[in-house]
């Protein structure tokens, strides 16, 4: 959309009304994934491999089948024969392999069989009656070890064309990009620092476990209710895995209890449908927390080498990074994303980045909020901090000196349109937090962060009712208040009250295809679609008014919820409110609706800058975050309170990633900490208030200037906290999480 079409004066946008689904969510009546049942419903449960890598020799389910409460058992043979193709080309095959193991169990927790029984207890009991004979194979769970020549091969032939010859078969994708001459740039530097960094795998940690209710008949028609970030991708994937037509499966998204990228694929949904098809009854499957940790999307762990050269005045003369990401037993670790995002905040003449996607015997990684970007930022921003310390330069000034701006050739290729990084850095410099004195034992850290943001396929439908109210149907599950922002944008165009718009997350049978609620795309893309759909309806409203007045339609314009005559030949008529036009729309041409179906492509990249103060206890190694400020470009904040919420949530997840959270695997390849007691996410008493500054540099690609805000907020925290901790402790922390034992060890090594 053209820049000159962008609106800048708003009536509704930028206000902070209560969310439309607030009442449901505070009274317990909102229906989440596990909050549904159906007549005749069975309960499903999944048997999972206790081995990190094992050939499945034989599955004997005869004892379970004979049990009176058991109505169906499924194994891989009950799914469609989806073809194998290398790399991510064969993603349906990868998902099927993950949903139900084929010849091999590939990680601790990998599904190998499932049962449906008359109660949840009976289903769990029946799992114990299934006998699986395994031939245990050597395993590898570490990314660097998985690349060594003698590492066990997870799957032959999984690598795609991008991987250079001679690499281990566990390396399945390779990315290289950049520009300029890094060697010349390093030669030009006054100081070059090269270092290696490690981050551990973390889980998205949504509080709602995966849950679904499936019904599939032998006529190939089905219904699925599930907690998901995208019910069209669930529809498409389940249909492929079960060998039915996509359109014959209607999927309804429940309220979703958090996703953060982890609910963008399917796990138990095809299993519930396969069980249902066999039992001819509805089947509900709900994961336990332990299943969530063992078998659903952790993020990738990473091993990284970064080298940056800087001149005495703070100019970065060259930057280079190698990023090795481990994504579990399937292709898909975002090594390419890590590489592309790592240096994206900076205007560099010489930059080179390499990313590896490496398989290991861990669960299939899933997207986690700006997937891949936080790790790279940790490594890069740590080296920049060290350069600033060594050269005696201010970390914000150095970032301002090198900051990308409109017209900069990005490290990953394209040339930036209008972006707001400089504005976030200037806001950081002006913020009282940056000038506040530190107490002894405290350190301050700064980091910038970048994320692409995403558009994606989007369908929206808006229907006006006779009484002048509007119903808006969107296809992106509301994960954090998006119903409110959609209603605000529709109200802005229609000129009717926010409260008169009912926003519904439509099922797959009601609306055209919608990409997942991911990529920070909902407020951008569903928002753009809502604006366009509302404008489409307004065009029709103007046509009806023109007909009533007997004037040409181009002599009618829409203002404040009314058709008004416009121009010299329009005549003199009183404004005609929307409700007056809809009141008799049945007899003036029929129902009035607006639609939008397209793939918006102007998502607009996003930047943020975080300031963190941390205090390290030298006796226990415990870190306390004492002050935190998030500054991020939102383009235009539709509902500022929910924008703040995204900033705060990203920071809090980043604090967990930086300080506590990690997947711990034993020598046996089994996950050691699969409950919240042992995998500790931040609790209320761990955190300070999180201050926010919303910067608004409008996105040229959205009619109101919106940039997505969901993901960028988790990019800077790992580095900002590591910089704060390193400055507080006086030793550079190169491995996350910076748990007390790691900090104590670093302090000891440092003498």
């Amino acid at each position, binding site marked *: 959309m053209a820049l000159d079409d962008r609106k800048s004066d708003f009536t509704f946008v930028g206000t902070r009304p209560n969310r439309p689904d607030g009442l449901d969510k505070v009274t317990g009546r909102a229906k989440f994934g596990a909050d549904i049942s159906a007549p005749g419903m069975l309960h499903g449960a999944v048997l999972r491999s206790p081995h990190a890598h094992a050939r499945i020799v034989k599955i004997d389910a005869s004892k379970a089948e004979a049990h009176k409460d058991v109505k169906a058992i499924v194994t891989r043979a009950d799914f469609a024969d989806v073809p194998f193709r290398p790399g991510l080309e064969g993603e349906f095959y990868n998902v099927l392999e993950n949903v139900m193991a084929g010849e091999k169990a590939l990680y601790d927790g990998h599904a190998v069989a499932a049962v449906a029984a008359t109660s949840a207890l009976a289903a769990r009991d029946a799992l114990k009656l299934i006998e699986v004979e395994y031939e245990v194979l050597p395993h590898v769970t570490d990314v660097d070890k998985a690349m060594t020549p003698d590492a066990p091969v997870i799957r032959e032939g999984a690598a795609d064309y991008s991987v250079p010859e001679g690499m281990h078969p566990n390396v399945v994708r390779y990315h290289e990009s950049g520009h300029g001459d890094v060697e010349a740039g390093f030669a030009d530097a006054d100081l070059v620092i090269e270092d290696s960094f490690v981050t551990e795998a973390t889980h998205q940690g949504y509080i709602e476990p995966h849950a679904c209710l499936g019904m599939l008949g032998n006529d190939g028609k089905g219904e699925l209710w599930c907690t998901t970030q995208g019910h069209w991708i669930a529809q498409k994937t389940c249909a492929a895995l079960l060998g039915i037509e996509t359109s014959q499966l209607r999927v309804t998204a429940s309220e979703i209890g958090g996703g953060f990228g982890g609910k963008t694929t399917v796990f138990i949904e095809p299993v519930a449908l396969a069980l249902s098809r066999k039992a001819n009854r509805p089947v509900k499957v*709900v994961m336990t927390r332990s299943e969530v940790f063992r078998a659903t999307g952790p993020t990738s762990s990473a091993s990284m080498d970064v080298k940056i050269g800087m001149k005495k005045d703070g100019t970065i003369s060259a930057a280079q990074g190698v990023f090795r990401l481990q994504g579990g037993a399937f292709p898909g670790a975002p090594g390419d994303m890590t590489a592309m995002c790592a240096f994206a905040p900076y205007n560099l003449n010489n930059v080179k980045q390499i990313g590896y996607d490496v398989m290991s015997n861990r669960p299939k990684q899933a997207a986690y909020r700006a997937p891949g970007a936080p790790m790279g930022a940790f490594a890069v921003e740590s080296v920049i901090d060290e350069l600033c310390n060594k050269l005696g330069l201010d970390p914000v000034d150095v970032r301002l000196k090198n900051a990308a701006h409109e017209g900069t050739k990005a490290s990953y290729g394209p040339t930036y349109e209008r972006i707001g990084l400089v504005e976030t850095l200037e806001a950081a410099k002006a913020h009282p937090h940056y000038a506040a004195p530190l107490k002894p034992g405290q350190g301050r850290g700064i980091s910038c962060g970048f994320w692409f943001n995403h558009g994606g396929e989007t369908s929206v439908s808006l229907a006006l009712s006779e009484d002048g109210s509007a119903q808006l149907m969107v296809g992106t599950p509301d994960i954090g*208040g998006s119903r409110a922002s959609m209603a605000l944008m529709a109200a802005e165009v229609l000129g009717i009250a926010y409260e008169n718009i009912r926003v519904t997350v439509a099922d797959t049978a009601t609306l055209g295809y919608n990409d997942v609620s991911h990529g920070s795309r909902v407020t951008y893309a569903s928002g753009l679609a809502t604006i366009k759909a509302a404008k489409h309806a307004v065009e029709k409203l103007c046509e009806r008014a023109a007909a009533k007045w007997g004037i040409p339609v181009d002599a009618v314009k829409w203002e404040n919820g009314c058709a008004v005559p416009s121009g010299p030949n329009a005549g003199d008529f009183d404004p005609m409110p929307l409700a007056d036009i809809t009141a008799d729309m049945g007899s003036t041409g029929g129902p009035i609706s607006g639609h939008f179906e397209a793939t918006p492509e102007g998502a607009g990249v996003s930047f943020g800058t975080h300031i963190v103060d941390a205090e390290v206890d030298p006796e226990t190694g415990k870190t306390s975050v004492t002050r935190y400020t998030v500054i991020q470009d939102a383009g235009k904040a539709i509902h500022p309170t929910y924008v703040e919420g995204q900033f705060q949530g990203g920071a809090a997840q980043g604090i967990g990633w930086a300080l506590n959270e990690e997947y711990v695997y034993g020598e046996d390849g089994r996950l050691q900490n699969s409950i919240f007691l042992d995998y500790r996410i931040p609790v209320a008493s761990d*955190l300070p208030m999180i201050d926010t500054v919303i910067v608004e540099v409008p996105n040229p690609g959205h009619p109101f200037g919106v940039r997505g805000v969901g993901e960028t907020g988790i990019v800077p925290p790992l580095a900002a906290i590591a910089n704060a901790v390193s400055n507080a402790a006086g030793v550079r922390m190169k491995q996350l999480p910076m748990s007390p034992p790691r900090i104590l060890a670093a302090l000891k090594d440092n003498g």
Partner: protein
Amino acid sequence: MSKLHVSTTVNGDAVEYLCDPRETLLDCLRDKLNLTGAKEGCGTGDCGACSVTVDGRLVCSCLMLGVEAEGKQIETVEGIADGDVLHPLQQKMIEYAALQCGICTPGILVAAKSLLEKNPNPTEEETRYWLAGNLCRCTGYDKIIRAVMDTAAELREAS
């Protein structure tokens, strides 16, 4: 295993159910009484999404057996509002946008109400420690803490 008969009181209503001795109070509330407001986030008492009060004491209903509810007074999120009038905590949670996905909200509300009944004037630190058993992954707790403390202030003024 045969089922056991339980008579108890939930949100002031006398109720009965039959349950397996292994089923938790949370299972019974959700599956037998259709009170699905309390959520199972972990099943190990670590997340607080299943918080209810039993005879006035805040508990994780996933850690208590259904049979242990015999003769008790149980309060769940469904009983917090007074008819169609929301409790001030519920109102403030909405106003402060103290929920994003909303899955932890029922547990937070039950726990926060319990806090304010015991301590009408909690400090920020007391509020944070009281709610430390209720995991929220979306908000970073900032708006939740503010909503609870503002509710406390409003209730103190009203009393």
